[in-house]
């Protein structure tokens, strides 16, 4: 086994030579281009010990290593995406050497070409929607038509109402989130629904009822962002959050079983 391997960040088409100039990759490594025909991969040389099979198995469990690596990966992808359409690879995609990368570019040229065509001239936006814990209003039913309740019975009724209103406001939020997603999906070129993020790690309140990604034509950017604002106004059960623009992580991450 060699002592270094080739880490691939992303694939792009016919890039200018200077796309990687001065770009710093993982662990401060310089970013290079590996070309094959029309296509090119943005790569770095990394330590085989750290990124080999054994090393990855160990390091992927290490939250600090993970954070540093993710940041390095994103930094390169973001910088490249600003200059050209790029299809990011999943984090920690490594090949034995540059020749292997070239071979993969050759073998899968058609697929890569299709993916790049799909994202060219388009941008990914994220829309998250949360239930608003503040907005849950207990439904007050004046029991005027019944005999005055005894305190124990009243307590049980309160319990039930609280439970039902919590359930119905959650259901309401889920329904509204579905409407929001359907409306945005019509305007978007493509859309994906991701599982809700972990509450502690992402640090939000309430419940995440939508974690959507939308691939939007650059020409429709303004229309899309104002539509998000409009939907936030017309769906009072939700807190709506727009993030982006992103490299097309949700639509172009290439998986390769190497």
């Amino acid at each position, binding site marked *: 086994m060699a002592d270094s391997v080739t880490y691939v960040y992303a694939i792009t088409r016919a890039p200018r030579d200077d796309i990687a100039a001065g770009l710093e990759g993982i662990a401060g490594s310089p970013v290079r281009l590996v070309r094959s025909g029309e296509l090119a991969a943005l790569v770095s040389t990394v330590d085989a010990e750290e990124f080999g099979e054994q090393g990855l198995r160990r390091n992927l469990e290490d939250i600090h290593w993970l954070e540093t690596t993710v940041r390095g990966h994103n930094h390169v992808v973001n910088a490249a995406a600003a200059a050209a359409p790029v299809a990011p690879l999943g984090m920690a995609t490594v090949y034995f050497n540059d020749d292997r990368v070239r071979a993969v570019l050759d073998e899968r040229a058609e697929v890569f070409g299709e993916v790049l065509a799909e994202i060219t001239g388009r941008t990914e936006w994220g829309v998250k929607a949360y239930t608003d*814990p503040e907005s849950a209003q207990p439904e007050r039913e004046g029991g005027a038509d019944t005999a005055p309740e*005894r*305190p124990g*019975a*009243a*307590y*049980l009724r309160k319990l*039930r109402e609280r439970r039902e209103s*919590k359930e119905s406001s959650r259901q309401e939020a889920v329904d509204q989130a579905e409407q929001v997603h359907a409306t945005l999906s019509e305007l978007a070129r493509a859309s994906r629904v991701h599982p809700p993020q972990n509450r502690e790690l992402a640090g939000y309140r309430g419940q995440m009822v939508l974690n959507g990604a939308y691939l939007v034509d650059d020409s429709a950017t303004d229309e899309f962002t104002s539509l998000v604002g409009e939907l936030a106004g017309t769906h009072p059960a939700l807190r709506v959050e727009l993030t982006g623009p992103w490299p097309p992580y949700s639509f172009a991450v290439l998986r390769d079983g190497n």
Partner: protein
Amino acid sequence: MAERPGTGGRTGRLPHRIETDSEAVQRDLAKLVLTIIELIRQLMERQALRRVDEGNLHEDQEEELGMALMKLEEAMGELRDHFGLTTEDLNIDLGPLGPLLPRD
């Protein structure tokens, strides 16, 4: 638990005393005990509603059940205040299983 391992550092043997901030330990213990009580209390409330829904309790029995649960909730509130804990404090993160108690 806010425990510092004994700083004795005698290898291979447990220290005779674990140095801890006794107030912190007390508070953590109270938190743990109250969390378990709160879990049981919430389960009882659910169970009670189920019993009422089944509809074979007398009105008086329902009243009694409601009163008992109401008093329990009050007592729980007093205990929380006494130890200076919030409802959010009485929850344990079970990692992949999520929180022990449902969050509003």
